[in-house]
């Protein structure tokens, strides 16, 4: 069932009703086994990364909701062949005895699933999935320590009753030592720790980049310790729920929304269940459709829904509210990448919110980092070499798998980087960061590792990349010119001595004198060339500015439905970005 949904990108990937139905027919364990893939718990390396992801996500969400700056510690210990213990602890609000079972040992018990809100764990399936996995592979319960700040902290062990999908607590003890937050420990078999691009370390590094307000410590199975320091002290504003935007909504969605609504008339259904829908919009729709908007929405036919979609297309609406979206913010990404990637050059851009099919507001953030620790390190023929690194995020959650099918990868690949003077981006020390922000991310599969290639999504990412790419290109080509100049200088100078020795043989003049004179000539020439280049660059930039003014550039080609009310603050100055206000400060 879930797999079938993969091809239908406009819809939530997992249909809750269907899952619930299937729940009744099978035991939880059976369901779990059948749907391990859907839960992202397959592949020996991937499973371990997924486990870390589920715990970290819960910790970050919990801390943010409780307005706490997250301090998270992750430890992975190897207990035997393909046998590991994963411990994640945070300083969050903790769970009380009533909720701990539901949160960590009951599948599909999450509360986030039906809210139109941007959040990390959308299906509330992860942490309990880990409990189930631990139980199935090692027979061991998950150990939990929780401290809410009220009453004594406690420890307990959790398993899931597979028949009833109910949490089973055991060994509940009150602790005498103080503890605030939640610590979870699971023992798992059939998994492997690897220090690769898809392993837990890289996952945590990227999580830290996307969550600069969090501090993350990690101890890997060899005992090596890593610390990703906090670079921002403000906790992101919690998101709010929003309704779908009328632009881009599909006919079948209107039909299904209409079936589910509490409204008695189509008019009130439209007004209540869609974003940016005022009385004036309703009046305009009334004029455009052939039926009475007072009719019962439950009776709305396919053809009538088509009329509504058509009307939506013709009417102007205010662009979707960005209030529900939580971009990381240009300044924070900037600080964060400087903190962790330490690039030579960095440019960050947060685009205005837009909307993709289904009326879901989304927003794109892009950063290009060059030099420093940017790029992926691979073992090449001549030692370590750098390759392009694409850091994909959906709502700040790193996407490590299924890169090939992801809209972000496709957008990066379809950019003609040569236009921005980035000659061979694949072999350049470049990190491209893309954070896709939406209340509902159109994942390609239940593993939640790739974003479907919605046309509007790709286009937005491309626009952001092009604008950021130009800035990066200017820097990189300047650097390349400098490198070429240095190489040239080296060549001339290395031959200068040989030439001087030969001329000494022919003329009798001292080698040192001739050599010094030759050095002078070389330096003079290179300075001259530099001046010439600067002149050319200045001329080129002048031209680019002209083009921009005449609207020839990519900017301004595409605008959201209507102008954003909020004014963007920043303007670019000399390749360094000045920052606009993120929505989360």
């Amino acid at each position, binding site marked *: 069932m879930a797999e079938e949904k993969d091809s239908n990108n406009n819809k939530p990937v997992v249909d809750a009703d269907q899952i619930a139905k299937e729940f009744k027919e099978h035991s939880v364990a059976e369901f779990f086994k059948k749907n391990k893939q859907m839960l992202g718990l397959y592949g020996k390396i991937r499973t371990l990364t997924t486990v870390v992801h589920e715990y970290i996500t819960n910790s970050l969400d919990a801390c943010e909701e409780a307005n706490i700056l997250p301090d998270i510690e992750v430890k992975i210990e190897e207990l035997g062949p393909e046998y590991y213990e994963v411990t994640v602890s945070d300083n969050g609000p903790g769970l009380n005895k009533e909720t701990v079972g539901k949160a960590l040992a009951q599948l599909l018990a999450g509360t986030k699933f039906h809210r139109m809100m941007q959040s990390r764990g959308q299906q509330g399936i992860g942490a309990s999935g880990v409990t189930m996995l631990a139980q199935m592979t090692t027979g061991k319960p998950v150990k939990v320590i929780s401290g809410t700040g009220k009453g004594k902290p406690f420890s307990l062990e959790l398993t899931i009753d597979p028949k009833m999908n109910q949490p089973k607590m055991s060994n509940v003890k009150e602790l005498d030592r103080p503890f605030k937050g939640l610590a979870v420990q699971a023992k798992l078999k059939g998994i492997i720790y690897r220090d690769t691009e898809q392993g837990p370390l890289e996952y945590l590094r990227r999580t830290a980049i996307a969550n600069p307000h969090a501090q993350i410590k990690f101890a890997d199975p060899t005992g090596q310790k890593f610390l990703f320091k906090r670079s921002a002290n403000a906790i992101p504003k919690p998101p709010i729920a929003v309704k779908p935007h009328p632009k881009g909504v599909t006919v079948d969605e209107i039909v299904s929304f209409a079936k589910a609504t509490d409204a008695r008339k189509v008019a009130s259904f439209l007004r209540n269940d869609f974003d940016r829908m005022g009385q004036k919009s309703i009046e305009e729709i009334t004029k455009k459709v052939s039926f009475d908007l007072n009719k019962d929405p439950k009776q709305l036919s396919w053809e009538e829904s088509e009329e509504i979609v058509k009307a939506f297309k013709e009417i102007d609406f205010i662009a979707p509210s960005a209030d529900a979206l939580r971009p990381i913010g240009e300044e924070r990404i900037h600080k964060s990448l400087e903190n962790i990637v330490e690039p030579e050059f960095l440019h960050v851009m947060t685009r205005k919110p837009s909307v993709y099919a289904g009326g879901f507001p989304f927003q794109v953030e892009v950063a290009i980092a060059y030099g420093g620790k940017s790029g992926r390190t691979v073992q090449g023929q001549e030692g370590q070499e750098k390759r392009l690194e694409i850091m994909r995020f959906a709502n700040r959650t790193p996407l490590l798998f299924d890169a090939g099918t992801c809209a972000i990868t496709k957008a990066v690949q379809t950019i003609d980087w040569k236009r921005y003077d980035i000659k061979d981006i694949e072999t350049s020390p470049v990190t491209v960061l893309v954070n896709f922000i939406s209340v509902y991310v159109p994942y390609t599969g239940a593993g939640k590792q790739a974003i479907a290639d919605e046309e509007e999504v790709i286009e937005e990412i491309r626009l952001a990349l092009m604008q950021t790419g130009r800035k990066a290109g200017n820097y990189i080509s300047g650097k390349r010119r400098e490198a070429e100049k240095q190489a040239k200088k080296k060549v001339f100078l290395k031959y200068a*001595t*040989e030439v001087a020795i030969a001329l000494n043989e022919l*003329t009798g003049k001292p080698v040192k004198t001739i050599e010094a*004179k*030759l050095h002078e000539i070389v330096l003079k020439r290179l300075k001259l060339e530099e001046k010439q280049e600067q002149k050319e660059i200045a001329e080129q930039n002048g031209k680019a500015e002209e083009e921009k003014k005449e609207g020839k550039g990519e900017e301004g080609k595409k605008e959201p439905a209507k102008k954003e009310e909020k004014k963007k603050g920043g303007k670019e100055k000399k390749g360094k970005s000045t920052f606009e206000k993120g929505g989360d400060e």
Partner: protein
Amino acid sequence: MKDSEVVKKLDGAGEDILKQINKGDNPSYELPVRTLGNIYFDTKSKTIKLGDKTSDRQFLNIAHTRKFMQTMLVAAEIKKIIAQKATVSIRDLYYALKHTIEGTEENTFEEQGESDPIIEDIEASLNLLREELHLAASSKGVIVGDMKIKDGKDTIDLNKMGSGGWGVPSNVEPDKIDIKDISAEYVLFIEKDAVWKRFNEDQFWKKNKCIIITGRGQPSRAERRLVQRLNNEFDLPVFALMDADPWGMYIYSVIKQGSISLSYSEEKLATPDTKYIGLTVKDVETFKIPKEVTIKLNNLDVKRLNEMKEYEWFKNKQWQDEFQLMKDKAIKLELEALSKKGIRFITEEYLPQKIKSKDFLP
């Protein structure tokens, strides 16, 4: 030219560069361009000559700088060699100059192919002969015939050289090699060593009063210079005996008019009086040579043939007819193929008849 004058020329070139350096200019060295585009056929001397196009080899040009450095090194090294009154081979020179540039992993020269053209550049730009630079190209040719050679203190009788012949030394200039007591009546320049051996074994030169010489394929400058001297100083006619294929005919053209890369000194190397005695495609008919010993022309042959048809010095009816016949029949013929008609056919029938009937190409 005296050694002291040669050294003066080299020093002059160095002083010129130094002057530019002292002025703070980008030092450059002017060279004649030695490509097909800058040579012409001089109808007066009937040899290939170098045109007057020149190029500047600049120190501050990333594409020139290595060659500039190499040019300076070669010039300085030649000065040293002359001072030592030695003559060295161009391979010796390459090794003498090859070293790792300080602070790098790069060598001044990576292969002899880098230093050889630089030598030619210096010869051409200073208008000096290789011999005057005390450099010797390796020579590979052999010669026998009724004549005597005085080489230093030794006098060599070239009709008493046995089966191997006398190896032509690399320097055959008059101050080194004195030619005397010639009783031969013409020179036969044979392309291939194996065929030369047949002519020597059969004592062809004795019976026919001639000198036979081979350059073993494309002759080096010594063989060409020696033949030129025999032609110039003793009025001996020169006949070339080559394979009937574009390559053999091209070698003939080099002996007669000169080559592109040495165009600057062809007046000292080429022998415009040379005549082409054979083989020709026409011979196949005339001498009833069986079809099965001919070889089919390949694409490269045809390409080469078309190029040669356009050479100015081949623009006469006989050669154009021969080229056309070769194209039409699409065959070529090796000298050894005549053995099909008997081992001594070439020396006892083919050549005497050709000479008797004056069946030559110009």
